[in-house]
């Protein structure tokens, strides 16, 4: 998750881009401890794990979706090794969608 904080610095003043983290934690205390530690500069919401997995069709976390201006998912990343979790990779996806 720290890579999202780094990537976000590029877009924090850009009104056309939004980041949203959605936690599927069941244990609210543990989640709060994690958030206190991470101090994410963008919003964090919660969803029920089973509902989120079913609606979004992922079976492992983290699962990342890049959505374009018209609400269409354009990129989806999941799994472990291939997570694409470098800040430059995150901003590559976002810049692709911004330029559409």
């Amino acid at each position, binding site marked *: 998750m720290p890579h999202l904080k780094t990537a976000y610095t590029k877009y924090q003043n850009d009104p056309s881009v939004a980041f949203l983290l959605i936690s599927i934690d069941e244990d609210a205390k543990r*989640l709060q401890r994690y958030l206190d530690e991470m101090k994410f500069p963008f919003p964090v919401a919660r969803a029920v794990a089973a509902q989120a997995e079913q*609606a979004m069709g992922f*079976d492992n976390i983290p699962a990342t*979706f890049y959505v374009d*201006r018209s609400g269409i998912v354009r990129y989806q990343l*999941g799994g472990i090794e291939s997570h694409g979790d470098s800040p430059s990779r995150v901003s590559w996806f*976002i810049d692709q969608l911004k330029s559409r």
Partner: protein
Amino acid sequence: MRSMQTLRVFTTCIVLVAATAAGQTPAREQLARGRAFWDQRLSKSAIAALEVAARDRATAAEAHELLGRIYIFKGWQQEATFPGWHDEPSYRARAIAELKAALAADPTRTSAQEALRMADAFAAADKVDPAPPRDEVKALDAKLESFRTAASAPVDDVVAAIDARAKAQADPAPYFTGAQILIDRGEHDRAIAIAERGVAVSDRFIDENLSAYQMSGKSEGSYARGRATAADLIGWARFLKNDYAGAAAKLDEAARLTEGQDFTNQFHLGELARAQNAPERAREHYLNALSLTGFSGGPPPLRQRATQALAALPRSGSEPSFDAWLEAELSRRREARKAAALKSLVDRPLPKLDVTTIDGRPYDTSSLRGKVLLLTFFASW
């Protein structure tokens, strides 16, 4: 009066059904079975046996207490026990309920009082550390590991060490470690037999603890890893026996299960292809292996052997140097793997999903409309 009788008949029926399901053994025996299963971390079987024992007045207090202790472990402490396991908060209230039931059955039971105090403290704590590794399991692991370098020890001692460790905790690790030790000693047939037993043990251990994985992707990954580890060990032992066809079947099976992303398995497939005089195929496997990096990148000595084997293979194309060619091939493979990870919801509208704020109020998503959005689902575990 009549309804009272009906109720009693009904209760008797339930107890009979449960006793039949559990093999018609008396409560005391179920309690012992439950304890033994739990010692091996076979959770489902332990819970089933203890639930039967908890219905008999003679064993109720003991059985409820042990159920409570199991649920404490599952709820707060199981995180580091086995790869892929996470705490299950849904068991926390059940832990306290079982311990209260134990004390209802026997208010003087001090061990249940202690367990309940522990559960209450965990419930109030901000953070509970995972259970430390068990000393008896650690000692048996160390004993088995010591045979890696004890080349003169009798093979029967190695097998005995595998069995002793497997008896202490029912996970597949001793079978896989043991099979590797036996391969290193040239005991290929015994290695194959041990690895084959490891497959069934791995599947069962995951079945018995399925809810600890929390997500189907994690449990499926764990099943696949167990089966792939065994298939690779068996395939490699067959290769060393010069049974190339048999080796290919098993090494390919491991490659399917790991989606071609296990370093050792790809290296083994490279060695097999080279022995079979198939340089093209050997090159693909060595390159696949070397394109894996970081945690899945394999140990440096094996990486070096793969690189040397690759350099010795005849090469097509007119690249200026081996190093430049290798770098281009590896980065092409890494990019292809990243592209393959993009999937499923792509080009479809973002589905509707109920989302709340951290403290449980509905989350207003209207401010996100019309923006480029990055959405990441995560958990703190």
